[in-house]
């Protein structure tokens, strides 16, 4: 047997090389904005986070009001139906209220018996009406920039969590990266550093990748008058509309988390029973 090759040395070398790789990887200041000074998004408190998360009906209704009165002039919501507003797990409007909200909008239908298309009031069974007929018109109305559809925005955005947070997140059930980002963005129109080179038609935002966003700050104090009397500060409105956008992205969140609780408790019970069965069966050997 050859002892001439010192394997413990090779082992140590390999392990330390791996260690160096890991160190390089975790310490690198890597940012998705490739170098710009994009601020780190903070975690907010949401009623829908965690194992027992739920939607606050009043919050969603206020958020809907903000969407309707501020955002819907540019942003579509094409995967949401008016009837969703009165379905369980959402803002909790009554079916009549949802019908009334729908009726404020008009949709093109047809052709009728003469072959013509016609306008009619939207029904609960219709999807949210878009502000622009198509993306080309949307761009033309917004200086070439396309306001993204907001139905899924809370799931379509994320934040750089870094190491080791991305491992921790796996086990804490943190899934609010997107909605924390949206909230941060809406509050991120702060004063620009003096040396920043802002292009024409763009706005400075602390959190947007590249720090330049085509959307001007959409929220300002009291731009909306809340029906329930809540003060319409930018923080409140952005919180409410972000929560609303979480619901539009995940309307089944409440049902999902409720079911999850029952399923996992059930599985623990079944695991316990199977463990006892296993022990009983294996005890038959060597007694």
């Amino acid at each position, binding site marked *: *047997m*050859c002892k001439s*090759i010192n*394997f413990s040395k090779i*082992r140590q070398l*390999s*392990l330390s*090389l*791996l260690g*160096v*790789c*890991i160190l*390089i*990887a975790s310490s*690198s200041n*890597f940012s*998705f904005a*490739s170098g710009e000074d994009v601020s780190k998004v903070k975690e907010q408190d949401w009623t829908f986070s965690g*194992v027992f998360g739920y939607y606050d009906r009043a919050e969603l209704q206020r958020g809907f009001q903000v969407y309707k009165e501020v955002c819907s002039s540019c942003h579509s919501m094409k*995967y949401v*139906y008016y009837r*969703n507003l009165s379905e369980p797990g959402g803002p909790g409007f009554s079916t009549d209220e949802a019908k009334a909200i729908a009726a404020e909008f008009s949709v093109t239908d047809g052709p009728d018996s003469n072959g013509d298309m016609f306008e009619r009031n939207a029904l609960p069974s219709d999807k949210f009406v878009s502000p622009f007929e198509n993306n080309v018109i949307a761009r033309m109305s917004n200086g070439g920039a396309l306001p*993204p559809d907001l*139905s*899924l925005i809370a*799931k*379509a*955005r*994320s934040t750089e969590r870094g190491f080791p947070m991305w491992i921790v*997140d*796996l*086990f804490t*059930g*943190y*899934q609010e*990266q*997107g909605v924390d980002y949206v909230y941060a963005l809406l509050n991120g129109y702060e004063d620009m550093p003096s040396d920043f080179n802002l292009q024409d038609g763009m706005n400075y935002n602390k959190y947007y990748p590249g720090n330049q966003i085509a959307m001007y700050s959409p929220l300002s104090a009291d731009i909306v008058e809340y029906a329930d009397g809540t003060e319409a500060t930018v923080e409140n409105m952005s919180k409410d509309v972000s929560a609303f956008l979480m619901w539009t*992205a995940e*309307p*089944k969140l409440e*049902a*999902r*988390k409720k*079911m*999850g*609780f029952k*399923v*996992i408790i059930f*599985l*623990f019970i*079944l*695991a316990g029973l*199977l*463990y006892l*069965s*296993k022990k009983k*069966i*294996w005890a038959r*050997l*060597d007694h």
Partner: protein
Amino acid sequence: MSKLSTYQPKSSLSRWFDERLPLPRLMHDSVNAFPTPRNLNYWYTFGGVLTFCLITQIITGIVLAMHYTPNAELAFGSVEHIMRNVNYGWLIRYVHAVGASMFFLAVYVHIFRGLYYGSYKAPRELLWILGVVIYLLMTATAFMGYVLPWGQMSFWGATVITNLFSAIPIVGGTVTEWLWGGFAVDNSTLNRFFSLHYLLPFMIFGVVILHIWSLHVTGNNNPIGISVKDEHDTVPFSPYYTVKDGFALVCFLILFAWFIFYNPNILGHSDNYIEANPLSTPAHIVPEWYLLPFYAILRAIPSKIGGVLFMFAAIGILFLLPWLDTSKIRSATFRPLYKQFFWIFLANCLVLGYLGSQNPEGGYLIASRICTAYYFIHFLVVFPLLGIIETPKPLPESITKSVLEKIKTKKIDEKK
């Protein structure tokens, strides 16, 4: 190592059936009576877990296909339709998406179990090779499945990977256009990926049957790697391992359920909730986590064709493993040097996975190259060398002796 069947048909109906098609006999011999080593630990339960994963993916997939539309204009919307309108659609979709990740988690544990205990060594070489075939089919299935929601990652991941085929000399461009059915990834590509994604799992199922059949010819390996000598070394598969596998499966399901219900999207990428846009590339194109190590290897090599070759070689080399390993000892339990290298290899794979998620520049690129080099060195240098120079620990005489030895040691410890 085929034994005589112990099946006794109980009723006249079962006797009639048995004379014409011995399927219940086959089931009895494979699942009920099959003599299995008595010392299998929980790392050996992942085969059963994988079978469950395959069946789950097939069932949820078939159900999703009842509501999904494989057309570039409608695909993304149809997935949202499933999530919002179909009864329990959100649940079935999340089970299928998380299920793919769980499937790969289980398959990696299963593969590393095989590496540790020498389950690829004679006479189980073909068992191992069939396993690698299953893994390849799984990778293809998962890749095509990820394209179907037609999000930004779906589209651009498909573009990057199909573009690799253009690296083939002379015919590369033609082959790539043939794959696409056009001049870029588009509706034609989506349609055929849907068809193949539906087909491949059934091919996987077929190879799994061969895999289990091959296992039953040689019998299971076991943690000490000593072959079965007599019936004392084994127990009937049922109820010993059916119940043990059942327990392990339910524990696996707890982890599975955690992700489905409390963090279904964390294993995916948020960009895939943006509808595919051929005119706008996302800042960072990354595949799903289970493909990251191969992505790292692909981008570590400076040439395009080189990267493709090394990426496929990383799986291809697994086919040669039974012949690369020169050791006569199966289990790492008795191979102290090999054990160390096993853990180094595992760490190397994890680091490669991490590197696959980062930009291939600067320190990340250097690290990718080191780790890729080590990956191949491990198979081509370490495996052959260790068998020659390593001194293994003394082997127990038989499985039964080693189990009794363990019980004796445990009783002495309890007395203390």
